[in-house]
């Protein structure tokens, strides 16, 4: 689903063009291909008594990856114009969801998944969604408890837990 062009606020400055990102990604992939090719060469890519060694198959794959990346770089460099990859306005919205997600992953290591999920849902609804505080808190509480009951109790899928769950005796 590509966004329709006319929906975007055209005045928002372009942060990066598709061409720049395309080339950057291809360079990264090329570096990765080089690294993996080296590692597989070290593992061994020739034949021994039992057939091809462990590095054989992935070594040639990294060559394919490298070749495709180089082709992509050349092609993009030859291209004249390019569409915007992301506008500042869009990037801001993407970060609005990415930053809380990152914080959530960090927090779940100490607070446990369910407390972190309460904070994420409530915080996101209040600050990003601008939804009434009491509605957000109730929704987050109901959601986190429902998740706990579904996964931990009903389906026996064990998630990281923190001090609160310890206090409640789970």
């Amino acid at each position, binding site marked *: 689903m590509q*966004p329709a062009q006319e929906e975007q606020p055209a005045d928002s400055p372009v942060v990066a063009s*598709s061409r720049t*990102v395309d080339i950057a*990604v291809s360079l990264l992939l090329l570096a*990765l291909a080089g690294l*993996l090719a080296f*590692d597989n060469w070290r*593992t061994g890519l020739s*034949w021994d008594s*039992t*057939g*091809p060694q*462990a*590095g*054989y*198959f*992935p070594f040639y*794959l990294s060559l*394919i*990856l490298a070749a*495709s*990346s180089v*082709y*992509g770089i050349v*092609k993009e460099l030859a291209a004249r114009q390019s569409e915007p990859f*992301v506008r500042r306005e*869009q990037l801001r*919205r*993407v970060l*609005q*969801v*990415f930053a*809380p*997600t*990152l914080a*959530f*992953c960090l927090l*779940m*290591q100490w607070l446990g*998944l369910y407390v972190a*999920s309460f904070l*994420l*849902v409530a*915080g*996101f*609804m209040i600050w*990003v*969604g*601008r*939804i009434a505080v009491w509605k*957000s808190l109730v*929704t987050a509480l109901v959601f986190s408890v429902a*998740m706990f009951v*579904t*996964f931990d109790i009903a*389906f026996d*899928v*064990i*998630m*990281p837990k923190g001090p609160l769950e310890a206090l409640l005796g789970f």
Partner: protein
Amino acid sequence: MEAFHLLMYGFGVLLTWKTLALMMLGLVLGIFVGVLPGLGGPNGVAILLPLTFTMDPTSAIVMLSCIYWGALFGGAITSILFNIPGEAWSVATTFDGYPMAQQGKAAEALTAAFTSSFIGSLVAVLLITFLAPGIASFALRFGPPEFFSVYLLTFCSFVGLGREEKHKTLISMSLGLLLAGVGMDTVSGQLRMTFGWSELFRGINFLVAVIGLFGISEILLTMEERLALRGHAASISLRVVLKVWKEMPRYWITLLRSAVIGCWLGITPGGAIAASFMGYNLAKRFSKDKESFGKGRIEGVFAPETAAHASGTSALLPMLALGIPGSGTAAILLGGLMVWGLNPGPLLFVEHKNFVWGLIASMYLGNVVGLILVLSTVPIFAAVLRVPFAAIAPMIVVSCAIGAFAIQNAMFDVWLMLLFGIVGYVFKKIGIPLAPFTLALVLGNRAEDAFRLSMIGAAGDMRVFWSNGLVGSITTLALVLLFWPLLSALWQRLSGAHRAH
């Protein structure tokens, strides 16, 4: 007749209260994820997979496949009422479905969509019931070279027939195959591409990657687009349903044509999206009244929905019979099979009869129950779309994290999921297709094993891939498909030159 007996046996496996309850739960969850913009079939199945980890495989696959059927049904609701395709293959449904809703005929359009979906799946399930056991027993005679040539065919057909730029498909596929190889080498037991990092010894889990690539990246994209939801309300009365059903037989050719296209493209990898467009375009081409398409014609809903569901369902045929998924969702179900300790492939039909026939029976039952369920509950699910996205987005993030963590009880996987979320977001925006990556990641190890076992068997002689008629023709077909764009360009130039003379 044997298939019929086995099917009855499958229904016997299925008809317990617990399984039926899981089926209903799966359908409701499936419709729910199908309706939510930014989720949909593969994402929904991937996120909800952890629910099934502690179940026995039969209950688990029944629930998962019902999530899938539900998601397929749910996709039509958003396409028709909100003009937002829940899935790429629902795009063609919006062409005539949304205009119908604007004209106040939403109920007709929805009934048409659900019923034709049902017919499409039914045709595909019949195909599976009668063809899959035969193919599986034929494939029992396959050795490593045959399997490798089939894998090669799968990969090559993606490169040759995909609509994306070829080098991007190649990037996606080789990256998937490489990442599949990280960790312990299954043949020699050697560690590779881990750089001494102990978290990587386990390898990169396929499902973790899928949850990130589809779930997290989809949330990022949906936020970026800032969807404004303005939809039409709808409820379906029995009168409307009967009216549409009475009209339906008039369009039998369209239905049949779409079902056949769908089944064919579903079995070939990556076909569901193409199937829905092809179904729509052919219905338009063969219609006497081409102009009325796109303006709210009921045939324009029948055609793509039948094709999309026929292909979505028949994508499970190669997965069951050969262990090669025909679509992204089928690939995730295949990943599930491995988690439950089953080894996908032709032996499944011999060693796990309960599982296979329970699944096939659940396709029949799930579709009938799903049809009744969606027809009666559309207003409830349409209301789901009015829940603000700011409430839904964090909940999806939490579900993704639970899914990623639960697979191996590892925090590292949660970080990996986040990384794949960014990768998916960037790849989608610069046009690197994700389906070949998914397929390569799930099949990579098996393809490599097949290759190396063939090489060991043949003492390194590549001619083993042409050693008999079967393996030779599959390998040749694979190479033809790989170079298909070049070959067809060459052919056009030659015939053009010929005409010029």
